[in-house]
C-alpha cells in the first residue's frame, strides 16, 4: 500500500535527521573509527638547520660573505630549510616558460641531492654551486657526468643519454626555428656517443668522458664562462 510506504519513508527521513542532529552535538560517536586527530598533528615542523658557517667554508670555495648572501636568499625562498622536488621543478620551470622543464629539473634535482633523501638541503645546494662555479675543470666534468648518469652506476648508457637529451629538447618547447624533429634527440645522442665512446662498447665511462672533453677546445673554453655568476 502506497500509504504505508510513504509512512515508512517519512519515518526513515525523521530518523536520518535525528542522527544528523545528534552528530552535531557530538553525542553520537561517528561510525568511522579511524584517528581523525592525525591531521592536526601534521604541523610537525620539518625544519632543517644547516651546518655551521666554518664547516661550509671548509667544504666549499665560497667566502663567508658569499655564503651568508646565498643562505639568506635560500632561507627566504624555503623557510623550512629544505627544497623538495616539486618546489624545485616549479622554480626551475619558471626560467623556461616555453617548454616543459620538469623532466630535466628532475635529473638536476637528483644531481644536487647528494644523499638521495628526496630534498635538497642548503649544504647540497651550496656544495653543488661551489663545484659548478669555483671548481676545477675536472670537478665540473665530474659533476656533468654525475648528472648524465641517471642511476649513478658509473656508466652512461645510450638510454640514459637519450632521456637526458629528450628532456633538454623538451625545454625548448614547440615554437622553435627550425622545428625540433622527433629524431633530433636520438641523432644528437648518436653524435655524442660517436665522440665520447672510445672503445665502442655502448657505454661511456668517466675516464672516456673526461679524456674526450679535455681534448675538445670548445668545451674547455666554455667551462670558464660561468665563473662569475655569483
Amino acid at each position, binding site marked *: 500500500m502506497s500509504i504505508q510506504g510513504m509512512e515508512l519513508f517519512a519515518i526513515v527521513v525523521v530518523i536520518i535527521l535525528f542522527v544528523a542532529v545528534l552528530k552535531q552535538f557530538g553525542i553520537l560517536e561517528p561510525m568511522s573509527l579511524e584517528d581523525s586527530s592525525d591531521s592536526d598533528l601534521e604541523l610537525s615542523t620539518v625544519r632543517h638547520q644547516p651546518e655551521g658557517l666554518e664547516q661550509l667554508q671548509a667544504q666549499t670555495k665560497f667566502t663567508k660573505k658569499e655564503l651568508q648572501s646565498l643562505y*639568506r*636568499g635560500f632561507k627566504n625562498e624555503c623557510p623550512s630549510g629544505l627544497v623538495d622536488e616539486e618546489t624545485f621543478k616549479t*622554480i626551475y620551470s619558471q*626560467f623556461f616558460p616555453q617548454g616543459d622543464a620538469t623532466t630535466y629539473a628532475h635529473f*638536476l634535482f637528483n644531481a644536487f641531492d647528494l644523499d638521495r633523501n628526496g630534498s635538497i638541503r642548503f649544504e647540497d645546494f651550496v656544495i653543488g654551486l661551489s663545484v659548478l662555479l669555483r671548481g676545477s675543470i675536472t670537478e665540473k666534468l665530474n659533476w*656533468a657526468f654525475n648528472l648524465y648518469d641517471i642511476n649513478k652506476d658509473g656508466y652512461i648508457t645510450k638510454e640514459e643519454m637519450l632521456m637526458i637529451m629528450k628532456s633538454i629538447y623538451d625545454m625548448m618547447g614547440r615554437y622553435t626555428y627550425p622545428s625540433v624533429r622527433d629524431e633530433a634527440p636520438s641523432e644528437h645522442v648518436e653524435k655524442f656517443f660517436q665522440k665520447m665512446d672510445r672503445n665502442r662498447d655502448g657505454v661511456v665511462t668517466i675516464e672516456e668522458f673526461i679524456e674526450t672533453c679535455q681534448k675538445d677546445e670548445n*668545451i674547455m673554453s666554455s667551462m670558464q*664562462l*660561468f665563473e662569475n655568476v655569483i
Partner: protein
Amino acid sequence: MAAGVATWLPFARAAAVGWLPLAKKTMPKPPVDKKSRSDEILIVNVSGLRFQTWKNTLDRYPDTLLGSSEKEFFYNEDTQEYFFDRDPEMFRHILNFYRTGKLHYPRQECIQAFDEELAFYGIVPDIIGDCCMEEYRDRKKENQERLAEDTEAEMATDVPLPPNSTPRERLWRAFENPHTSTMALVFYYVTGFFIAVSVIANVVETVPCRPPKGSVKDLPCGEKYSVAFFCMDTACVLIFTFEYLMRLFAAPSRCKFMRSVMSVIDVVAIMPYYIGLVMPENEDVSGAFVTLRVFRVFRIFKFSRHSQGLRILGYTLKSCASELGFLLFSLTMAIIIFATVMFYAEKGTKGTNFTSIPASFWYTIVTMTTLGYGDMVPNTIAGKIFGSICSLSGVLVIALPVPVIVSNFSRIYHQNQRADKMRAQQKVRLARIRMAKKGTTNAFLQYKEDGGLQDHDSDSAALCLKNRSSFEHQHHHLLHCLEKTTNHEFTDELTYSEMCMTESVGYRTSRSTSLSSQQVVSSSCCPRRAKRRAIRLANSTVSVSRGSVQELDTLQVLKSSAVPQSRSSLNARTEDLKLNCEQRDYTAAIISIPTPPANTPDESLPPSPAVPGILRNSRSISSFTHETVKISSL
C-alpha cells in the same frame, strides 16, 4: 617574475654547466656585471623611522623607485641614508613587499592613502596578494562609486543654464529639476496633488455608499455618483496627458524618453480612460474593460518622480536582481519538491484537498512562508511529518537571500543621504575657499599700502612689515612681479565696483579719447555682457602699452592713499585721473581686467558676486597679457 625566482637565477645559470659537454655550438659570452656583487645593508629613513635592508632585497624589483637608481635622488650624504618624507606606517607594508614578494593591504588604512603611497614608490597595485585582494577591490570600488556619485551630484543640479538655451531645453530642465524655477515647482506640486486625487478617487469609488431611495442593496459610490467621479477622472487624465505631451516635446531624445520606465508608466496610467471612451457600451467587452481599469492603479507609480525613496527602492531591486533570482529559483525548487511529496503522502485520504500536485503548490507556498491559512491541512502522519519539514525549511530558504538585499538597499540609501549632505557641505566649503582667497588678496593690498613694495632695507619700513613671514614676503614679491609684467595692478572688490560705478558716471562727460574704449568700459563694467565686447578690448590694450612708468607710479601713490574708500575720495581720484587721458585709459583697462578676453571663451564667469580673487585676476591678466603681446607685434 617573482622575487624568489630572481634568487634562483644564479643557480639556474650555474646548472647550465651540465649542457656544456653536449653543446652543438659554442656558448655565448655571459653579460659582464660591472657593479660590485657584494651585498650591503642600506638604511632607509622614512620620517624618522629607520628601516634597514639588504641592497639585494630592494634590487629584486628594478622597476620600482627603491629598486632603481631613482632612489639616489633621496640619498642624504651627511647621514649616509635614503630619506623619504612619507608615512612610516605605510612604508612597512611597502618594504614587506620587497621582502616577501607579496603585497598586503592593511585594512585599517584609507584606500586612497594606500594607493598614493603605492604610486609614489612605483608599485602597481595589481600584485596585491590573494589574501588581501578582495578587501582591496571592494574598498576601491566603494570609493570610486562614492566619488562618481559626488561628481555626478555636483554636475547635475546646480549647473546654471547656458544663457542661450532654447525654450525646449529650459522646459526639459524644469521638468527634471523642479526646484530651479517657481513655475516648475508649481507644476510639480499640482501634478502630485492630482495623482493623489486620482488614486483616492479610484479607491473610494468602490466603497459601498448608502443606497439611493427606493433600493435596498448597497451601492458602490462609483455608481451612485458616477458623474462626479467621471468628471474627476477626466480632469486628472487631462492633466496627465498634458504633462506627458509636454515632456515628450521637451525631451532631448524622444526615442529614449519613450522607452524609459516613467514614460511607460505614464502611458499605462492614462490609456484605460481613452480606451474606455472609444469602447462601446457592450456587455461582453465591458468585462475586458473592467480589467483595464486595474491599470489605473499604476498612477501611484507616478509618485516615484516625487519621492526619492521610491526611486531608491526600485534601483535596489534592480541591482539585487541576481539575489532575487536566486531566491526565486530556490523557492521554486523547494515548492515543487514538497508539493510532490505532500500530494503522494495525502493521496489515500478521503476527501482530501490535495487533489493534484499543482493544487499542493498552494499549500506549500502558504506553509513555507509561514502564513498557514489552514484551508489545506494534511491528515496522515506522513503528511504531517513532511508538512513540518516543509515549514522549517521554508524559513531558511527565505531568510537567506534577504539580508543581501537589505544590505544592498542600506548601502544605496546611505549613499544617497550622503550625496545630499555632501552638497550642503560643498556650499560651505566653497564659501570658505572664497573667503580665504579674499583674505589673501586683502593681505597683498595691505602689504602694498604699508609700503611693502619699497626698499626693505630702509629704516622707514613699517614695523608691521617686519612681522610678516618670509613666505608672505616672497608671495607678495611674486604678485608684484606679475603686476610689473602685465603693467596692471591688483585691486579689491569694493574699489573695483565703486570705480565701475564712478567710471560709468564719469564717462558720461566724455572726453576726446577714443570713444570705442569708453564704450568698452561702460559696458564691460558689468561682466555679464562682457564676452561679446571682449574683442573690442584690443583698442584699450593699445593705449595701455603706451602708458609710461611714471604714470604708473603716480597711480600707485594715488591708490595707496585711497584707503578709506569713500565715494568722495574716489571722486577725487577720478578727478586726478581726468588730468591725464593716458592714465584714464589705464584705469579703464584695469576695470576691464576681469572680463575674460575672447581667447578664453570657455571660462564662464561664476554667477556668485564677482570676487576679484587673485586667481581670477591673474588668469584674466595673464590672458590679457597675451593680447597685449599680440597687438604690439603687429
